[in-house]
C-alpha cells in the first residue's frame, strides 16, 4: 500500500533535515521525498499534512506496562495503544512487573506479545534478581533476549557494592544502569518535605534522598567506567550534580518526567492522590532548575514514567495510595504547552529529547527520514489546541491529574512497522 504525506515539514536534527516536501511511503518504506509524480498521488492515500511536522518516531524510555502481573491496570497492548495515541513509536518498559523482568523468558514474553504492534517495546530488565539488590541479574542472557538496559526502578540499587558490580558487568554490553534515585532510609514519606508538607501533616521526602544517590551513582560511574542513567530527576541539586559530572566526562545521562516540570507540591493541598508520585512533586525552584537542565542539555531526555493504577487503588487514603500517574497520552501536549510555546525549548531540541537521545542511551539506531529507510515517524501539530479527557484515553487506567487541562500541541499520527495510527485508529499501510 502507498501513502503520501503531502506538504509536510520534514525535520530531523541528526540529518540536518528541515524542509517542506511530499513524502511517499510504500510498504512501510520511505520511497520518495519530493519529486512525486501524478501516478504516486493517484495510487496512494494522500494525507494533507501542511503545517504539520514529520519527525523521527518518538521514544519514551520510561513506562510501566504492568504486564505480566497487573493486567487489570494495563497490558502490553493497551500500553502500546496509549503510546501510539500519545505520539510514540517506541517505549522502554520497566521491570517492576510480577514476576519481575529478571529472566530471559520474561523478556521474550514481552517481545513476543508486542511483536505485532505499531509500537516497539524494549524491555528494561531488573539489575538484580527479583529487584532485591542482593545479586546481579543474568545481564548477558537478558541482553541477548532483547533487554536494552537494567534497573531496579521503584527503588535504587540497594548497596554501593552491588551497583559497582552491575556497572562493571554491564560494561561488557555497554548497556546503561537506569537508577531510580532515592535513599530508602530518607524517603519514608508521601510528598516533598517542606513547609507545605509541614502544614499538610503529610510525611515528607527531602530532596537530599534523591541527591545522595545521584552523588553515589556519579562516583561509581566514574570509578567503574559504567553508564548510569538517572530516571525521573526531580531536584535542583541533582541537576547540578549531573551537570558537573558531565563536565568531568563521566558517563551519566538523565531524564525528566513532564509532571516534574509542570506541577509543584502546592497541588498536594487538594489531597488528590493523582498528585502523589515518587519522586514527589517538588518546588518552583526545582521546576526552574529542571527546565534549565533541559535547555542546556544536562537533562538528555523527557520520559513519562507512565504508571497506570486502578481507580480503587488511587482512591485510597492519601498515605496508602500508590505512587504514580499516567503520562503517555499527555506528555507531548505538556511539553509543547510548557516548554516549546514558552520558548524554553526549540522543536529540534524536543526531537533530541524524545527521539534521538533515548535511543543513543539505549544503543538503538535513530530512524532516518531518508529514501529507502523504514518509516518510523511521529507527525505533530504544534498548534493544535485540545482538552485532555481521561475518558478517551487508550490506556486502561485513568489516574491523571491533567484531566480537563487545555493544551497546545499534539501528535496527530504515528507510523511504524508498516502500520499507521491516525484519527484514533490503527491500520496497515
Amino acid at each position, binding site marked *: 500500500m502507498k501513502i503520501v504525506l503531502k506538504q509536510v515539514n520534514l525535520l530531523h536534527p541528526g540529518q540536518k533535515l528541515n524542509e517542506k516536501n511530499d513524502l511517499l511511503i510504500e510498504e512501510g518504506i520511505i520511497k520518495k521525498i519530493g519529486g512525486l509524480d501524478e501516478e504516486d498521488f493517484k495510487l496512494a492515500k494522500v494525507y494533507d499534512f501542511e503545517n504539520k511536522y514529520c519527525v523521527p518516531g518518538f521514544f519514551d524510555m520510561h513506562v510501566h506496562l504492568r504486564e505480566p502481573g497487573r493486567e487489570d491496570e494495563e497490558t502490553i497492548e493497551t500500553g502500546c495503544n496509549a503510546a501510539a495515541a500519545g505520539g510514540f513509536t517506541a517505549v522502554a518498559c520497566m521491570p517492576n512487573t510480577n514476576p519481575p523482568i529478571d529472566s530471559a523468558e520474561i523478556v521474550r514474553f514481552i517481545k513476543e506479545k508486542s511483536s505485532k504492534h505499531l509500537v516497539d517495546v524494549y524491555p528494561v530488565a531488573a539489575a538484580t534478581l527479583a529487584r532485591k539488590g542482593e545479586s546481579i541479574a543474568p545481564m548477558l542472557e537478558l541482553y541477548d533476549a532483547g533487554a536494552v538496559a537494567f534497573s531496579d526502578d521503584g527503588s535504587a540499587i540497594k548497596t554501593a557494592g552491588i551497583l559497582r558490580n552491575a556497572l562493571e558487568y554491564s560494561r561488557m554490553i555497554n548497556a546503561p544502569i537506569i537508577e531510580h534515585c532515592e535513599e530508602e532510609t530518607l524517603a519514608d514519606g508521601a510528598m516533598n518535605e517542606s513547609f507545605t508538607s509541614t*502544614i499538610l501533616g503529610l510525611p515528607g521526602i527531602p530532596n537530599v534522598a534523591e541527591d545522595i544517590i545521584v552523588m553515589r551513582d556519579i562516583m561509581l560511574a566514574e570509578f567503574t567506567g559504567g553508564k548510569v542513567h538517572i530516571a525521573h530527576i526531580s531536584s535542583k541539586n541533582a541537576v547540578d550534580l549531573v551537570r558537573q559530572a558531565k563536565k568531568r566526562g563521566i558517563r551519566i545521562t538523565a531524564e525528566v518526567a513532564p509532571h516534574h516540570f509542570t506541577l509543584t507540591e502546592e497541588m498536594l493541598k487538594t489531597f488528590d492522590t493523582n498528585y502523589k508520585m515518587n519522586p514527589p512533586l517538588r518546588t518552583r525552584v526545582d521546576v526552574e532548575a529542571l527546565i534549565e537542565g533541559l535547555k542546556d542539555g544536562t537533562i538528555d531526555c523527557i520520559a513519562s514514567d507512565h504508571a497506570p493504577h486502578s481507580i480503587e487503588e488511587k482512591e485510597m487514603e*492519601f498515605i496508602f495510595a500508590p505512587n504514580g500517574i499516567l503520562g503517555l497520552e499527555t506528555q507531548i501536549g505538556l511539553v509543547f504547552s510548557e516548554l516549546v510555546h514558552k520558548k524554553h525549548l526549540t522543536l529540534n531540541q524536543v526531537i533530541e529529547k524524545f527521539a534521538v537521545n533515548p535511543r543513543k542511551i539505549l544503543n538503538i539506531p535513530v530512524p532516518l527520514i531518508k529514501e529507502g529507510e523504514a518509516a518510523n515517524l511521529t507527525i505533530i501539530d504544534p498548534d493544535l489546541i485540545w482538552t485532555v479527557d481521561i475518558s478517551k484515553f487508550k490506556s486502561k487506567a485513568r489516574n491523571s491529574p491533567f484531566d480537563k487541562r487545555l493544551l497546545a500541541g499534539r501528535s496527530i499520527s504515528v507510523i511504524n512497522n508498516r502500520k499507521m495510527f491516525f484519527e484514533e485508529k490503527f491500520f496497515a499501510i
Partner: protein
Amino acid sequence: MSLSSRHLLGLNGVPKEDIQLILDTARTFREVLERPIKKVPTLQGKTIVNLFYENSTRTRISFELAQKRLSADTINFTTSASSAKKGETFKDTVRNIEAMKVDMIIVRHQSAGVPQYLTRISKANIINAGDGLHEHPTQGLLDIYSIIEKKGRLEGLNVCIAGDIAHSRVALSNIFGLKTMGANVSVCGPTTMIPAGIESLGVKVYNNIDKAIAENNVLNVLRIQLERDAGRRIPSLREYHQYFGITAERLEKRNKEILILHPGPINRGVEISSEVADGPYQVILDQVTNGVAVRMAVLYLLGTMHN
C-alpha cells in the same frame, strides 16, 4: 450566629469569629455539664457516626459523651486501617455509612487529608478528630478554651508547645488557632522533632526548655511516642526527660506563674514529671471536661446549621 463552614476540618484558615463563637457556645455547655441533669435535647433525631480508623479511646469517648449530652443517636465504627485495607475500601465503608442516612461524621485516621476526602464523597457534616500528622481541631479548641478559662485572655499571651512538633497534629491545630486568637506562639523540642519551615508560620523555635519556660505564660506539653522515638530521633527517653522534661524544679526556678497543659495520655517521667502532672501548675483534668463542652459546641453549631 452561625459558623462560616459546614465542616470542621482543621483550624488553618478558620476565622476568629468562628473560633470565638465555638468558645462562647462551649461556655454555655460547660455550665450544662455542672447541672445534675446534664442532658439537652438539641440534637434529638440526628445521627452521628464516629468513624475511627485509629485507636483513640479518649477522643472517641469525649465525642461520644458530647453526642449523648446533646441527645443525638450515635454509631461507633472503630477499625484499624491496616485491617480495613485488606477488605472493604475506605470509600465503600463511607458509602455504606451514607446509606444509613447519617447527619454527621466524626473521623479519625492516620492519613492526613481523609476528612477533606470525606467532604467530597459524603453529604454529612464532617468533623476531623485527628488526621495523620495534620490537624486535630477540637483538641486545639479545647486547649484554647482551657487557657482562656485560667488566664482570662489569649491576646498577647506567650504560648509554647513543647515536644515532638513534627509528629503532632495537636501542635498544628494549636498553632493555627492560637495565632488567629492573638497569642504569640512558639515551639520547643530537640531539633529532630521540629518540622521543616515551621518558622514560616510565624512561630518562634526553642531548643532549650528552660528558656522556653522562662519566656512563656503557657506551656502545652505534647506526649512523646515511646515506641516510635527512642533511639531514632532522640537517643533515649532518659535523655529526653533530662533535657526537655517538665519538672517542678525547672518550673520553680524559671517561672512560677506558668500554666501547664497536656493533651494526654501522659508519659510520667518522660515529657512531664508526676509532680507537675498532679501539681498546681496544670489543668490536665479540666482539659478533659472542657473537651466535652467544646465538642458539644462544635456538634451543636454544625448540627443545627441549615445546610
